[in-house]
């Protein structure tokens, strides 16, 4: 039964265990039934309402059954560009239910999901934790038939991908698509060399080296890493923590997936370096649920490093001890925001915190914490070995080093590219085979939609900053469809905490849809801008502060498209539909039929 006590065994009796227990129950039963909610609440000492609050926050948890097998089909714009509609239809026909539903026989549940980090091999889906990429309608039908025939999803994978995707610990059909190997991430690296070098230095010297290298956060925000470590080290409220943000959720980014697949040890070395620098003995890798299939391989890399004395007690023969634990997410874009990530790692709803205090002061479990991106930590390990001058010789004076870009969309060679900062959009398009592009989305939906006139702009922190997502749009694409998809994403992924992000984005999207329907006036365009600015200025965290960008950056870079949609000179309620209003009124009065006729006259 679902109130089976064995589900809670091994989990501490406190709220920090909440998400881990929910994950166990969800995995065993396909949902969290009411009796399990009471059991969990009693075990961790929370109210049932609080437990339901946590379950309903995360996309991959559910209070309702999701089917014996659950299919989560990616809903990113690139998936749509690559034929998602036909795949979705095939899933629905074969399963016998619509998306958002479970088939009548309870065997299959179909659900859409935000970008799962496979944008270079769409359409993709996660089926019972197994990733399926490059789906066709036929492949979709075969998956459903296989599941109905009692096969496990992992046994339905025909051919494994390249590199470590073929290893016994991964066995995924995912491909890396590494198109350009740069000197920082993909340069020759002797395993453990960063750790051995680090223990011969003082923590202050490590921080100094990272500062001299001018390493800026690779997640997109670009905060100086050395400074962050310095702030964290100076805080007096031990224990300190290192948290690796492996929750890349920006639609179109998948570069951390490739790093974690091919270079997990480099990331862990970077975490050890960070730990040594700030004075932490524990590190946490917060892994997005979409990448849970990499967990056995990551755990194995950790075990290898412990065996080699590169993690654990007195590492590399020093007095320094450091180890790393992996925590899983459960489907929430907002958890890529560092303070929301910390809340989630502590077992709560992933709602951002107010700052100050910043995570370096009040972070994981309320202690000084440095939260760094996967790529940042890998780069830090390399800088320690190769030296700051080597790093600053790459890139531009203000944006040192290289950036790993995830490129997808209308181009000949989608995949990951390690390029030096300062590359122009045009140069990138030549590299990836997309010279015809009409627009390039740099930095995902929260970034900038660049028009052809902006193709000489450069990818660097002072111009086009990006966490790594690059989506190429060919000349035949509809900008409005793209923007609509991005706005749906933000509405869906807002945590709902603050007014402007929760309500504002819904209202902004409605206004946008009105304009796209051709019912907008010039006043509506001005209001799109005003409302977008309102949401940016008053939202509580980075999600809300960037959520209007799909509309604002296309208004700025494609003004002619918007102008062609609106009625000139009108400023009355152009969206008022008299026929619909009369119909509504008649329905309310139960005079449906006669009035419909009247309204047509």
């Amino acid at each position: 039964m679902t109130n089976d006590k064995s589900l809670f065994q091994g989990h501490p009796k406190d709220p920090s265990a909440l998400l881990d227990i929910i994950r166990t129950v969800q995995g065993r039963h396909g949902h969290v039934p009411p009796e399990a909610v009471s059991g969990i609440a009693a075990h961790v000492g929370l109210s049932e309402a609080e437990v339901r609050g946590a379950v309903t926050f995360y996309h991959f948890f559910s209070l309702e059954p999701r089917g014996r097998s659950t299919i989560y089909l990616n809903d990113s714009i690139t998936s749509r560009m690559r034929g998602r509609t036909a795949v979705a239809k095939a899933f629905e026909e074969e399963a016998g239910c619509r998306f958002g539903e479970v088939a009548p026989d309870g065997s299959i549940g179909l659900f859409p999901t935000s970008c799962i980090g496979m944008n270079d091999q769409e359409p993709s889906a996660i089926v019972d934790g197994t990733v399926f990429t490059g789906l066709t309608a036929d492949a979709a039908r075969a998956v459903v038939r296989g599941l109905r025939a009692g096969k496990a999803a992992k046994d339905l994978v025909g051919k494994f991908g390249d590199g470590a995707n073929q290893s016994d610990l991964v066995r995924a059909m995912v491909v890396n698509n590494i198109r350009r190997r740069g000197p920082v991430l993909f340069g020759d690296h002797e395993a453990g060399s960063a750790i051995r070098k680090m223990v011969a230095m003082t923590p202050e010297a490590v921080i100094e080296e990272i500062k001299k290298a001018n390493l800026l956060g690779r997640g997109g925000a670009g905060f100086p890493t050395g400074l962050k470590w310095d702030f964290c080290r100076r805080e007096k409220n031990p224990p300190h923590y290192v948290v690796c943000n492996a929750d890349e959720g920006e639609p179109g980014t998948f570069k951390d997936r490739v790093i974690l697949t091919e270079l997990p040890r480099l990331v862990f070395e970077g975490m050890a370096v960070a730990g040594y620098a700030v004075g932490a003995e524990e590190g946490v890798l917060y892994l997005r649920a979409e990448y849970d299939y990499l967990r056995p391989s990551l755990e194995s890399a950790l075990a290898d490093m412990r065996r080699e004395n590169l993690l654990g007690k007195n590492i590399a023969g020093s007095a320094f001890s450091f180890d790393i634990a992996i925590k899983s997410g459960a489907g929430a874009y907002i958890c890529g925001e560092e303070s929301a990530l910390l809340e989630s790692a502590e077992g709560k709803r992933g709602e951002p915190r107010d700052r100050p205090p910043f995570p370096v002061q009040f972070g994981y479990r309320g202690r000084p914490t440095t939260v760094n991106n996967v790529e940042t930590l890998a780069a830090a390990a390399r800088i320690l070995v190769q030296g700051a001058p080597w790093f600053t010789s790459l890139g531009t004076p203000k944006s040192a080093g290289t950036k790993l870009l995830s490129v997808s969309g209308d181009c000949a060679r989608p995949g990951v590219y390690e390029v030096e900062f300062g590359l122009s959009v045009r140069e990138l398009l030549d590299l990836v085979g997309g010279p015809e592009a009409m627009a390039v989305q740099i930095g995902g939906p929260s970034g900038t939609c660049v028009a052809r006139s902006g193709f000489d702009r450069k990818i660097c922190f002072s111009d086009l900053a990006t966490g790594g997502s690059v989506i190429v749009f060919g000349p035949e694409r509809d900008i409005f469809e793209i923007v609509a998809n991005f706005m749906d994403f933000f509405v869906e992924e807002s945590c709902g905490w603050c007014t402007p992000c929760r309500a504002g984005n819904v209202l902004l999207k409605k206004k946008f849809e009105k304009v796209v329907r051709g019912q907008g006036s010039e006043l509506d365009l001005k209001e799109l801008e005003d409302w977008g600015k309102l949401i940016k200025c008053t939202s509580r965290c980075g999600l809300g502060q960037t959520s209007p960008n799909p509309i604002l950056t296309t208004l700025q870079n494609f003004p002619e498209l918007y102008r062609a949609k609106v009625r000139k000179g009108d400023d009355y309620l152009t969206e008022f539909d008299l026929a619909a209003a009369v119909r509504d009124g008649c329905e309310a009065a139960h005079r449906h039929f006669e009035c419909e006729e009247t309204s047509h006259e």
Partner: protein
Amino acid sequence: MSEIRFTIDGKPCTGKPGQTIVEAAKDNGIYIPVLCHFEGLKPVGSCRICTVRVNGRYAAACTQPVSEGMVVENTAPDLEDMRKALIEMLFVEGNHMCPTCEKSGNCELQALGYRYQLLAPRFPYLWPRRELDASAPKLVLERNRCIQCLRCVREIRAKDGRAVFAAVHRGPHVTIEADPELAAALSDEEARHAMEICPVGAILRKETGYAVPIGERKFDGAPIGSDIEKGSER
């Protein structure tokens, strides 16, 4: 303890270390409108009505601590319009029927609407369908009026610390839920406190209503915030 000196709209102010801008402003006789904020509760910055500019950057005054030399803008016309827009947003996001609401006159959202001279909102009404929960013996949870300020979530707890109210779902689907078991155990006193702490009419006591007649209620005589501003005129 040393005093912190800063300015609000050019007026020299003083504050104590650790004090938020909202608290310090109040001590200096300056009203910064708030809605989710409630004295004594940990601020959460959810409504954003208290948005100010601090050294040129936007911040929620209820969560931002004062610091030496800080320059705070509070009544710039663009800020006041943003606040008005946020109030309008809360009105269109729910279903607020003031004339039939037991909280009318005591409602802080309504009072802010008057203070900001809200006529017709700039946003279209969303008319959401929201479930009313009357299952608890002493309370009605009238979600049509809920503005997700999280006051009840923060304040109303069982003796063992478990939260009686919790936010469920996320994004535009967030709703406040009352834990059936814990809500049933609330005393008359606790239930009244839950109603009082709710800034709007989302938490109502059962079996009693309109104890104070319309016309004699909290905001019937003077606009919200005038008590703080009156202090400064002395």
